């Protein structure tokens, strides 16, 4: 399980990184950040990039800060940094709930938030978080920088709308309002395994009823997504067991085809119910 040969590049600036990527992208060049997804794929020779652009030493890529109501996450911010202290208010609480479910400690010290998005694994907690909160993803190339909504970025199983020569230079997560409640539930076979199912919810209770709900589901389909029907089922209702149940059923109703529909339905319902209950 030794990787196939490649050429290695270690840019120090974002301009340099983008320039190298532009040159090597047509030759199946890939970006190396935390490497916790790409390097195993290379060891199994499922991935055989001819060039690797290692962005770990690009100045400023490890920046993590809050600006204009958004948490800005540089491409080399490790999972471990995204704990409760990473953002104020409910968003920090939410990150603190989600992050411990990502693989294991030594993976979290290396793997990156942006890398998770770029790899677009269906069972990635950060991809779920990104779609749930409408993250914006900034991609930079020689043609300039564009900002892509998470839902348009994550196209399917391990597929994104990133062009081969585009470097993911930042992800931005909106802060949540102070009255936002947050909940996350994940079921995996073993500690640290990819999720069989996971759900992330946030909503506020204003005037005794649910406002601004976001309900996202991951692990069952080829990509995580917000469940509009579930959100519609709960908005404006008193946040009680009955309302939660309607939301969970609506989420399950909206599932696309899966290998074992009965079990998938159960998992979807359960995850949404439990995430809602955790947020209550």
């Amino acid at each position: 399980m030794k990787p196939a040969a490649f050429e290695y590049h270690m840019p120090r600036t974002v301009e340099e990184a983008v320039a190298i990527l532009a040159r090597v992208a047509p030759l199946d060049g890939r970006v190396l950040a935390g490497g916790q997804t790409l390097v195993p794929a290379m060891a199994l020779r499922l991935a055989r990039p001819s060039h690797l652009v290692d962005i770990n030493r690009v100045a400023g890529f490890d920046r993590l800060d809050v600006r204009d109501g958004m948490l800005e996450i540089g491409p080399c911010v490790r999972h471990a940094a995204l704990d409760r202290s990473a953002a104020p208010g409910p968003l920090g609480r939410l990150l603190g709930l989600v992050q411990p479910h990502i693989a294991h400690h030594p993976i979290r010290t290396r793997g990156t938030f942006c890398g998770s998005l770029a790899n677009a694994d269906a069972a990635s907690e950060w991809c779920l978080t990104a779609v749930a909160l409408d993250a914006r993803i900034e991609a930079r190339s020689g043609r300039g920088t564009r900002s892509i909504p998470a839902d348009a970025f994550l196209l399917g199983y391990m597929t994104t709308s990133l062009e081969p020569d585009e470097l993911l230079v930042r992800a931005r997560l909106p802060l949540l309002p102070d009255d936002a409640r947050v909940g996350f539930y994940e079921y995996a076979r073993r500690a640290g395994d990819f999720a069989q199912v996971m759900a992330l919810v946030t909503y506020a209770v204003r005037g005794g009823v649910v406002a601004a709900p976001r309900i996202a589901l991951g692990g069952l389909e080829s990509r995580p997504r917000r469940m509009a029907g579930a959100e519609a089922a709960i908005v404006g209702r008193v946040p009680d067991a009955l309302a939660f149940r309607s939301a969970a059923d609506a989420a399950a109703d909206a599932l696309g085809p899966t290998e074992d529909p009965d079990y998938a339905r159960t998992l979807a319902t359960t995850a949404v119910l439990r995430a809602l209950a955790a947020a209550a």
Partner: protein
Amino acid sequence: MHDIAFTLNGRPWSLRVEPRRTLVDAIRDDCGATGTHIGCEHGVCGACTILLDGEPVRSCLMFAVQADGRALRTVEGLEKDGALHPLQRAFIDHHALQCGFCTPGFLMLAVGVLERTPNISDEALTDVLSSNLCRCTGYQNIVRAVRAAAEEMAP
């Protein structure tokens, strides 16, 4: 080929490596420090866990070129002046190893975490020690050993 330099357990090394050479292969075969083991080469088992600038990482998931300028620590660096590290001692006292293949990875994982969080909670310790696989012990004695060493290491 790339020229790199790092320290391994405090000792400087200069190597010329192919980019694809994994860090664990460089440590074992180029530096001759075979205490770090290879169990899966895809980042799941944790046998190759080392400390990179003090943080536990899987050395099978890094390329040696990436370690340029970094400080690496492996199991061989734990013993100081002929005295075993408290974790090594505790692993013996609590029978936390049988075949010993996973042991260096567990030791480095625990050292890295306890040096930063000596008063780690039981729940957090379970989460951390679930990172690595052991096929012999059933983990129970590993937890006991790490807990005992943590008390000794706490300031």
